[in-house]
């Protein structure tokens, strides 16, 4: 049984002490700025992706092809000086193609032994491109890695590197021959980020940057260790009890069977968000507070984080689909209906 070396909790605590909130904010802004040199516009996309990274979560990017999803992940990996792998999901992709497999090989003495050959998942940043094109069996191979940051092969648990960040993409248009992600897998994604089409000005800038002789050069402004410290610091941001209660009310409000749920929930939602949704909501809010230069979570942080954190965790019913409602509209309605006090 081989377990990659990891920091002990005490080491993680000391790492937290080495990072202060100002450094956190500076690092985050530098990372965003460096990524922004390659990715034109898409500030929300970059911000939400960085938040997901700093929260230690995984992001599901949904957008049409050609919106620089792969470029974003690759650039991010370069900026934080972390390893990067890309898996193009296809229907014939097997789990072993992702997590690796056990091979029979000869050792130095010539004896045949089993050797684990790690798959592309053993990296810091993993781009699961068009994840919904793989079969559910293959998709589920990511479950343990995304949640536990471990991979189990042949009864052997292999710990993944830290930081570990899965960024999956899916195309909302080409649904034929795809396998929609099951709710259990969707719940593992910290954020579902909608990649919008750039504006005209952004398109002009994209054309200028990508069709000229000059290629923007990015710097490696952080490291995996710094990211880990930032992740640890983010968790220490205080949150007042009444703010926490508001987050809980938001989650409860997504459940149609709850007495406290608003009318829009009862009308359009079949299943509400899980406790993981609340964890994502609070963690993202803490990071947003730090990025905003505050040391506490505010209601506005929760409201800002609610859409990417809950849109993929609220399963709409038939009525919503029939009326053409999308999850964002429903979640926005819930946010507006739940009072802060």
């Amino acid at each position, binding site marked *: 049984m081989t377990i990659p070396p990891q920091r002990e909790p005490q080491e993680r605590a000391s790492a937290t*002490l080495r990072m*202060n*909130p100002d450094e956190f904010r500076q690092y985050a802004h530098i990372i965003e700025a460096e990524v922004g040199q390659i990715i034109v516009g898409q500030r929300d996309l970059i911000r939400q992706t960085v938040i997901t990274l700093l929260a230690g979560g995984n992001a599901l990017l949904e957008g049409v092809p050609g919106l620089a999803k792969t470029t974003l992940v690759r650039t991010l990996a370069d900026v934080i000086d972390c390893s990067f792998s890309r898996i193009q999901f296809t229907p014939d992709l097997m789990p072993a193609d992702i997590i690796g497999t056990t091979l029979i090989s000869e050792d130095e003495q010539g004896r045949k032994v089993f050797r684990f050959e790690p798959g592309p998942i053993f990296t810091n940043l993993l781009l699961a491109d068009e994840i919904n094109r793989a079969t559910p069996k293959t998709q589920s191979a990511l479950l343990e890695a995304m949640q536990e940051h471990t991979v189990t092969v042949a009864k052997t648990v292999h710990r993944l590197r830290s930081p570990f960040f899965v960024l999956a993409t899916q195309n909302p248009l080409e649904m034929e021959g795809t396998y929609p992600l099951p709710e259990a897998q969707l719940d593992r994604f910290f954020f579902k980020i909608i990649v919008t089409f750039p504006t005209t000005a952004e398109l002009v800038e994209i054309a200028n940057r990508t069709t000229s002789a000059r290629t923007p050069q990015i710097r490696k402004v952080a490291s995996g260790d710094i990211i880990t410290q930032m992740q640890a*610091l983010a968790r*220490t*941001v*205080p*949150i*007042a*009890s*009444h*703010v926490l209660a508001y987050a809980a009310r938001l989650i409860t409000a997504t459940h149609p069977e709850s007495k406290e749920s608003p009318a829009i929930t009862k009308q359009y939602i079949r299943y509400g968000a899980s406790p993981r949704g609340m964890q994502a909501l609070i963690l993202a809010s803490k990071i947003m*507070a730090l990025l*905003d230069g*505050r*040391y*506490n*979570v*505010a*209601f*506005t*942080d929760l409201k800002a984080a609610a859409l990417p954190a809950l849109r993929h965790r609220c399963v709409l019913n038939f009525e919503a689909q029939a009326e053409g409602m999308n999850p964002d509209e429903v979640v926005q309605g819930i946010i507006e209906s739940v009072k*802060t*006090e």
Partner: protein
Amino acid sequence: MSNSYEQLRQQLQPLGLRLRYRDTLLLASRTLWSGTIGFALVLLAGRFIPIHNLWLLAVIPLILWALAMIGYLLARQLSLQQVARRMDSQMELRERLSTAIELHDQANHDLLSQLQQEEAATVAQRLHPGQIPFEVDRQRLRVSMVPLALGLALLWLPNPQNTILAEQRQVQQTLAQVADQLEQLAEQIAQNQELTAEERALLEQQLAELQERLRQNAGNREEALADLSATEARLQQQLDPQTDARQAALEQMARNLESLSGRRPAARPDLNQARQQLERLAQELDTMNEAEREALAEQLAQQAGQLAASDPRTAQSLSQAAQALRNGDIEQAAAQLQQAAQDVRNAQSQLADQRAVQESLAQIQEGRQHVARSGQQSQSGQSGQQSQSGQSGQQSQSGQSGQQSQSGQSGHQGQSGQSGQTGSGGSQADHLGQGQSGTSAQVDPNRPGRNGSGAGRERSDLVYQPYNPSTQTGERDFIQGQQGEGGQTQQREGEQALPGAVNPSLVPYEQIFPEYARSASEALDRGYIPPHLKEYVRDYFSQLEPGNAP
């Protein structure tokens, strides 16, 4: 306690006070309508029902509202955490203050907690109460102004109920005066040793009860009149219709006894002397000769016959004494004469009781008339004229007058006023309203000269003129009837169904007299009156002229 928390607390305290003021002001603007609606409703009700101290009652809802607001201000104590949350929300501080307060309570000392509290204290330093604007609900405030304006308009406009209230106040004053007079009468009755103890106690009780009811009356004329009438009816039941006849017969007996003793009889003989004369006769029987005894027996028998109807007990004693004298039984005759003397003594007490009842009745009747007139005087503007001379002929007591006119002799109930009188054949209505002089005044309804032809009214007298709704405007006049005791009917003229309503049927005598005189003159000229009766009619109306006293 950390320094940053102490700074935060010191900053939040004045902000909390400001928030309390702000909340109270907002609540006041939202709830003012309740006070102003109450204000307007009370004033509106004051337009339909007479309400004493309407102003005071109208402002009570506003005072209660103001007290509620003050209570809210005092009771609304905001905790530091509440103030922090309110300020976070008000000033968009992103929950900095409330988080800092909570972190202090949790005694959390990690880096971010300390930084957070320091930042909160820094932010709080920039806050001051002036940044919290006072807020009012303008829409609700405008709604509140509507009933307030209505109420003020109602206050400014003349209130018809004020007239009724003035009348009630006047009635109340009159009732107090009547009660005072009854109290004086009760004191006199209590000091009168001629009365029997039972009668004195009964009268005192009845007068005391009436006084109490009158003093408790809040100005309700009908209720007061009913109380007076009820007491009057009870007193009338206590009246003996044979009183005057009995007194006259006893006085006649006293005259005869004085004549018997050889003295000249007085106009108003004293019954004590009659009693003493009887006792003296009883003692002198032994010294009389046969002829004198025979004459005395004859005299006593004659007296017994005169007293038989009015005082059968005394008559029986005298008759038995006469019979004993005729039989030569001196002892029996003396005993019967002593018994007759004792009967006279008893009759004296009973007559005194009756006089007290009559005085009480007269006082109550006078008071009732005052009460019936009170309030109307203020409306008609004739109070100055009516206050001295009274108002004659407005009340008639058929039951009372019928009782008093039976004896045909003067009683002890009379009038001392010399104002014009309108006798109408023994009707008590004529003498009741004519300015009695007080407690000592007594009425003698049967005294000659009182039952005149009706001439000689005072200028201030009011007389009844049939109301004609087709030619006059105003309130209808009502004559209320009340079924009295024993099937007797009491009529009260001049009382109106609606308190304070002007009675158009009561007009000054000098005002109505010319109309009747003119009508009579026309009738004479047109030959409706037989020629031999024309002089009588002219004489009649000449006697009726105002100020032409008999």
